[in-house]
C-alpha cells in the first residue's frame, strides 16, 4: 500500500464508520448549509437538498466500509463536490426542470476531484449490486439476507427450518447467481474493473 498523507478531517470518515452521532451532527451543522444554499440557488428545494446530503453521506459510508477511504483533502471540499455533482445529475435526469447553473468560478483541486470520482465509481457499483439483488428469486434473497444478518449459519438453518448443509449450499449458489446477473448487465460492461 502506498502511504498517503491523511488529512486530519479523516475524523469525519471514522466518525461515520463508528456511527458517532456527535460527528454526524457536526457534519450537518458545518457542511450542510452550504450544500442546501447551492441546491436552492440551482432550481432545488430544501427537501431535495436533504435527500442529496443523506444519499451522499451513505455513499461515503459505504465506500469507507467496503473499500476503506483515506481522505487526502479537506472533507468540506470532497463532500461539497459529491453533493454538487449528484444534484447536477438529478437535474439532468428530470427534463422538465429549467436548468440554470449558478456557479462560482472556482477551480477544483485535482486531489479532491480524483477522490470524488473514485467514490462515485464505487457508488455506481453499489447501486448495480442493489439493482441485481432485487432481480434474484425471493428464496435467494431471503437466504442471503439471513446469512448476513444472523450470526451463524446454524441459526439461519434453524430459522428457515432446513438443514445446515442445505443453507450452506444455497448461500453459495445464490451468491453465484448474483454474480451472473451482475456480469450479464449492460451497466457492468461500462464500469471499470
Amino acid at each position, binding site marked *: 500500500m502506498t502511504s498517503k498523507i491523511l488529512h486530519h478531517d479523516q475524523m469525519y470518515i471514522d466518525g461515520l464508520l463508528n456511527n458517532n452521532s456527535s460527528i*454526524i451532527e457536526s457534519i450537518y451543522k458545518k457542511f450542510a448549509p452550504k450544500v442546501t444554499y447551492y441546491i436552492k440557488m440551482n432550481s432545488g428545494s*430544501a427537501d431535495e437538498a436533504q435527500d442529496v446530503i443523506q444519499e451522499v453521506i451513505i455513499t461515503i459510508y459505504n465506500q469507507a466500509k467496503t473499500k476503506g477511504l483515506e481522505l487526502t483533502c479537506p472533507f468540506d471540499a470532497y463532500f461539497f463536490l459529491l453533493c454538487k455533482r449528484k444534484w447536477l445529475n438529478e437535474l439532468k435526469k428530470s427534463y422538465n426542470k429549467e436548468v440554470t447553473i449558478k456557479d462560482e468560478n472556482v477551480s477544483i483541486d485535482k486531489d479532491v476531484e480524483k477522490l470524488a470520482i473514485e467514490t462515485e465509481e464505487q457508488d455506481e457499483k453499489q447501486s448495480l449490486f442493489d439493482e441485481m439483488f432485487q432481480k434474484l428469486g425471493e428464496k435467494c434473497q431471503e437466504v442471503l439476507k439471513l446469512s448476513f444478518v444472523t450470526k451463524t449459519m446454524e441459526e439461519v438453518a434453524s430459522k428457515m427450518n432446513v438443514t445446515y448443509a442445505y443453507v450452506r449450499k444455497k448461500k453459495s449458489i445464490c451468491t453465484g447467481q448474483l454474480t451472473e446477473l451482475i456480469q450479464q448487465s449492460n451497466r457492468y460492461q461500462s464500469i471499470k474493473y
Partner: protein
Amino acid sequence: MQEELYIAFENYLNNEMTSEEKVDFENKLQNQESFKKQFELYKETTQFLEVKFSNDTIDFKENLKSISKDHFSDTNKKKSKVISLQSKWFAIAATLVVFVGVWFMNSGGNPTYSDFNQHENANFTERGSVIKDLKAAQEAFNDKNYEKAIPLFEKVLEEYKRPEIEFYYGISLLEVNKTAQAEVVFNNLKDGKSVYNQKATWYLALTKLKVEDFEACKTYLKEISSDSEDFEKAQELLNELD
C-alpha cells in the same frame, strides 16, 4: 459445474478447505485468468452483501435518518416543533401554570415535575413485523394513555431495540411513577451514542425532580450542554431550584 465452483469459492473464503484443496485452488487462481476474475467478483459480491446487511449499517442508516430529520426541521421551521392544536392550548395553559408557579415559588416553594412534563409526540417511521404494535404504542402514548403504552413498547423492544423507542418507553414509565425503571432506561440512553443521549439527561433530571431529589436533579441539569434543545428549560429549572 457452476454450482461446484461457487461452493468452492465459499469454502475458500470461509477457510474450510483441506490443505490439498487449498493448494489446488490457489494454483488455479494464479494460472487461470477467468477463474480468478470470477472469484474476485464472487468475493466482492460477498463483501457487498456483508456491508448491506450488517447491523452496523442498518443502525447507521437509522441514526443518520433521524439526525437529518432533526437538522432540517430545525433549520426550516426555525425550531418550531410540530405541535397539534390541542397541545397549543395545553402550552398556553402550561405557561399560565408556570406563571402562577413562579408566583408561589417566590414565596419559597419548589418547582414540581408537572410544571415540566410536556413531552414531544411520538412519531415512529419503522417498517416490518413490529409495525402494528408500535403504531398502537405510539397512539396510546400520544393520547397520554401510558399504562396502555408500556406493555406495547415492551413487546416491540423485545425484538426491535431502537433508541427512539426506548426513549418514549422511558417517558411512559416515568409518567406512571415507575421511576426506578425509567432511570435505568434513561441511563442506558445517556451512555449510548444515539441522538437521544442529551434528551435522556434532561429526563433523568425530571425523574429526580419527580422524586424530589433536588440535588441530583441539579447535577443532571448542569450536564446539559448549551447546544442541546433542552438547554433553556434546564436553565429555567435550575434557576427555580436555586
